[in-house]
């Protein structure tokens, strides 16, 4: 695939240096380097704790009402924490990006690399209920209804509920939903389908099913460069390869590793340790391994 996909130009241009210093340097760390596969741009600096719970009462904490004003921070931070967990999971081929307007809406794209849906590139949006984490499970809706037993042929919504009948805080996390969304393309389940036609074909006429899937994958690819369905500065946009923009970005990604190493060496803000691994005695490390 020679299309280089990039986040919306909005998200790139929206981060001039002036804004870099804003709020807590949220994830300003370039995501490129944690895993070279994940290419999520930073969460915008000025976009962090905003998503107000719809009503203060819904914010989980403020039983006495006194601290209702902190409610938004809890929700926003919970979602940020969820996002952090997603990133830590490093789900292969899955990318998400919270929207600019609401932390409750995440844009995503999934690349299928093997199996029936190979070469599929499916954009989707995750909707998180605003009484999260106490509400229902998040919804995941594909931009284009992929031909799949568990995807509603009209709305494009994936049947997430079957995996998360009851959303339990502390146990369920959004990365699980994303993982599930990836999994359904590799392990096809046909019970109580949202798309009965797909289910039946899969069971009865796998060849026809396959060709329909291929059509569906093609259709999705042909719409890859469409404007995003939801207008948002952080929506995920694909564009044809444009050397003016992409060459530099790719170069940056490829060189990231080196500069990182150099950085480590020149880094002054480093902690100290003379503890031998496995030991709990101070200064147990041998002299020669002494950091210099």
């Amino acid at each position, binding site marked *: 695939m020679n299309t280089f996909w990039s986040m919306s130009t909005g998200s790139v241009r929206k981060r001039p240096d002036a804004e870099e210093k804003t709020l807590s340097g949220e994830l300003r760390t370039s995501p490129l380097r*944690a895993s070279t596969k994940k290419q999520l741009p930073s969460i915008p600096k000025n976009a962090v704790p905003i998503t107000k719970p719809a009503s203060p009462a819904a914010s989980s904490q403020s039983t006495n009402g006194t601290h209702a*004003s902190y409610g938004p*921070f809890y929700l926003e931070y919970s979602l940020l924490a969820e996002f952090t967990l997603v990133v830590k999971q490093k789900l292969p081929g899955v990318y998400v990006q919270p929207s600019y307007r609401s932390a409750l809406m995440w844009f995503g794209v999934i690349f299928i690399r093997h199996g029936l849906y190979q070469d599929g590139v499916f954009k989707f949006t995750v909707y998180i209920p605003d009484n999260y984490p106490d509400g229902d499970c998040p919804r995941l809706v594909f931009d284009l209804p992929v031909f799949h037993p568990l995807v509603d042929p009209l709305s494009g919504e994936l049947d997430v509920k079957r995996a998360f009948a009851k959303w339990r805080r502390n146990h369920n996390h959004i990365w699980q939903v994303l993982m599930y969304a990836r999994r359904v393309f590799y392990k096809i389940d046909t019970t109580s389908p949202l798309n009965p036609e797909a289910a039946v074909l899969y069971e009865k006429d796998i060849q026809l099913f396959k060709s329909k899937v291929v059509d569906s994958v093609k259709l999705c690819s042909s719409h890859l460069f469409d404007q995003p369905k939801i207008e948002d500065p952080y929506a995920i946009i694909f564009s044809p390869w444009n050397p003016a923009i992409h060459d530099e970005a790719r170069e940056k990604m490829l060189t990231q590793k080196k500069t990182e190493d150099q950085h480590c060496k020149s880094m002054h*803000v480093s902690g*100290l340790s003379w503890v031998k691994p496995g030991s709990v005695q101070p200064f147990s490390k041998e002299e020669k391994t002494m*950091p210099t």
Partner: protein
Amino acid sequence: MERMSWLSKLTPRAGGQRAPRSASLQPPVTADPETCLMVFKNHWAQVLRILERRGSKPAPDDLSAVRNNTYQMLNLLAEDRPRGDGDRSQGDGDMACGPILEFVAAENLLEQLLCWHLQGDFTEERKVEQLKLYEMLISQARQPLLRHKAVLTPLLRLLSVCAEPASAPLENSLVLLLNQLCVSVAREPAILELFFHSHTDQGPANLIIFSLLIPFIHHEGARGQQARDALLLIMAMSASNRTVAQSITDNSYFCPVLATGLSALYSSLPRKIEVRGDDWHFLRREDWIGVSSLVLFMNSLEFCNAVIQVAHPLVQKQLVDYVHNGFLVPVMGPALHKTSVEEMIASTAYLDLFLRSVSETALLKTFLRFVLLHRHDNATILDTLVGRINSNSRLCMVSLSLFRTLLSLNCEDVMLQLVLRYLLPCSHVMLSQKRAVRDLDIYGKTAAKFLSLIPRCCRPESPPPPPDREEEPPSRARAHGSPGADAPPAPKPSTPSRLSFFMRQASAAPPEAAAPRSPGPPAGSPPCAGPRDEVAELDRNYLEYLRDARRSIDRCAWACRVWSAPYDGEDPRAPGPPPDPDSPPARPPGPPTPRTKKRGLPEEGAREVLGGSLGGDEPGVGGSGPDPRDGGTLVNGAHTAAEPGRPEGDVVVKKVRRSPQGEGEGNEGAPNGAPQAQPPSWEPLPSVDSLLEELLARAPAEPPGTGVSIETFTEELREIEAEMRNGGVGGPLAAPPEPPEPPLSREEEEAFASFAALPEGDAGAGRVPSRPPDPLAQVVASPPRAVGPPPSQPFTGPFVSVLFGKLENMPHNSLYVNFLLTGLVAQLACYPQPLLRSFLLNTNMVFQPSVKSLLQVLGSVKNKIESFAASQEDFPALLFKAKKYLIARGRLDWAEGPGATPALRRPDTLARSRKPSLGELLLRHANSPTRARHAAQLALQGLRDGGLQPLPPLAPPARHGEALRVRNAVYCAVIFSEFLKELAAIAQAHAVTSPFLTEPPEE
């Protein structure tokens, strides 16, 4: 004579002083080398005639003739160019000698000259002359001279003649020459070999340059600096030359001199740091730069640091060892254990300064090893220092600063010794909870809990205005283009725009600050803004706390990536068999669920819990204490009974009491009849009342919302300032450290009480009379108690217990102690290690009943503040006043230095950058009264710039002890609330620490 004049035209330099090279370039270039050689020979012939007149004493005329001729000759030699230099194609490796140099070598002319000098009366003056000549020769030569024996040998001989101590001019010339030699050698390291191979009077293989320089290591002024620079050059050469390194370590006294020199210099440091500002707590550069003895010490320490930076590992190691064994152990150790409090303060502040100044890892390691492992009088330095936190306010502050420095190193070994090793066995948590150590609180529950501890009396009178519903929200994202979203479950008010939210956060800040707020303080709001607005802003600065927390945690996590283990409860494992965690308490193991237990007592009703589980009981008092297992022996709050059998290392917390626990809970905490009840003692005496009345009369009278004129405001601040200073423990400059009779501040009383182990109860003013004559002597004399739980009991370590003890005492601590204390705890809370994080911040964890949690401690502070507020009628006015003062102070700091204080509400920055009083730091031995005056002027200037005028301290009224007590409590209420926000923010930020922490967080 004619020729002479020509010659002087040829080399127009005067007096043998260096002229810039370019200046002397022109004439020689035009001069024909053959002519120069002829002139040179001519001079030599004249000199030789005198030299050969043996036997008879040289006449004065002879001397000056030789001098003049030599001078001319050496100038010519310096200008001599190697043959074939014209084409410059040859490298400087194998250049043939210049004609003059050739002649010099053939005649061994320099040697002959020197011999002649040595035969006669080689006075110092003549030595200086020779040294200067050689210095000129070496520095200006146009060809490498030192590699020629004919130059090197006489030079070394001359040097060896100058080895004895001598007058300043001689030493100056000597050091200058040596410096020059080192520069040359650094340029051409091969020469170094020659220095080794030349046998001189000094003995074989002795680097004479080196041994001559060593005595000047610690000298002050230019001479010392030149000597150190020169030595540093050799050190740098040693890095790549093992022979040099070995010669330094084996055949020179370099390392011992350097290290023990530190000891000598240390002994001349002021024993007592006299400061006026009651908030002084650490030595800043501007504090010590005018104190010559300290400057001298710091120069040498910096030199050590530099040597370790550039030298060969052999030298490095030897020096580091000498610093440890020749300075730290024999000098620093005893200094830290001096018996007078003043000396303790000074030595602690010095140690802190040293730790902050050392940048080389190897040297820092030595310092840390000393602090962590060295035992003095059976206790490690670390334990002693930990214990000091619990002492009177200045010593406490200085010690807190030291720990701030230690924590900021992000050093695994330090953290291991301070906290982690006590948490490693996980015996502080219920067995069933061990797995929860790693849990992250992603829903902000901990934050909510901390915030709920903000005392009711400190909450904004009216909750912050609800989100502005009028604002046009951007189209609801969810309704937009989401196919299935047509019917959201229940239509709810929409999300306000992000921007407007920030506007509200930024409050009075200028509009452009709305989105990205630069690190400017909230005080960035115009100074003329109504004080009410500013004060109200304190209620809305949570976002900044979040930002700061995020930054600190990221930085800390980044720094800790070099650690050997994650400290997550699994790795590393605690050494030895883990103690059975459930045996000591009579309690059954906790329920398997990590759900909250009502330990945190967020609100009402929790008091009973507190009272029940923490109720006062003074072990050993009257025997009426409840069964210790019932929670009386709050172990990390330190066990009061001496435990002789304790494992090594856990010593020294002299006595950490759970401070007046009864306060919040009424009187039930005083079974022994001691007046433990806090409310009565909070009752302000009438006199105090009136004083405060007087002081604060204006504030409440202001119609809310109207801006106060700056003048009025300034006036008020002045008064508060004066009052602060007045009550400050520092006292006026000349005051003896501890006047025996005048009433001590409550804090000192507290501190003393905790040291002297008086019964807990008489915390009130009533106990003053019972004070023994010299409390400090007692403090010091009282043997360090081995304090801790019985071995079977979980113990979270002396550091935690001292901090918690001090925290619990917050309402009685001075403002500055609380700044530092809360800053330190916040620093601790930023560490990402799950063991530590869960201990401090996981409010869902169920601890062993004997282990006190941070939440419990904070809960008890909250109760104290609330009951104080209830007893103090004008509390709201006082609180308002205190906030105003703190904000003004923050602005003052901010106005003074760029980059000084990022934000006023940050406790430690607030305290840290208090220039007006810090600048006034006068060390007793500061030799220059002008300096003192200058400092005072600066301080004054600072105050003026900040719009404040200092007031001379008022004569302390007898009642000021009470006023101080009230003031401390009111300030505490402000700091405490801010601290809770800070902790809440830290708790939240832990959940979102970037997984991308592969690049250093920005500064």
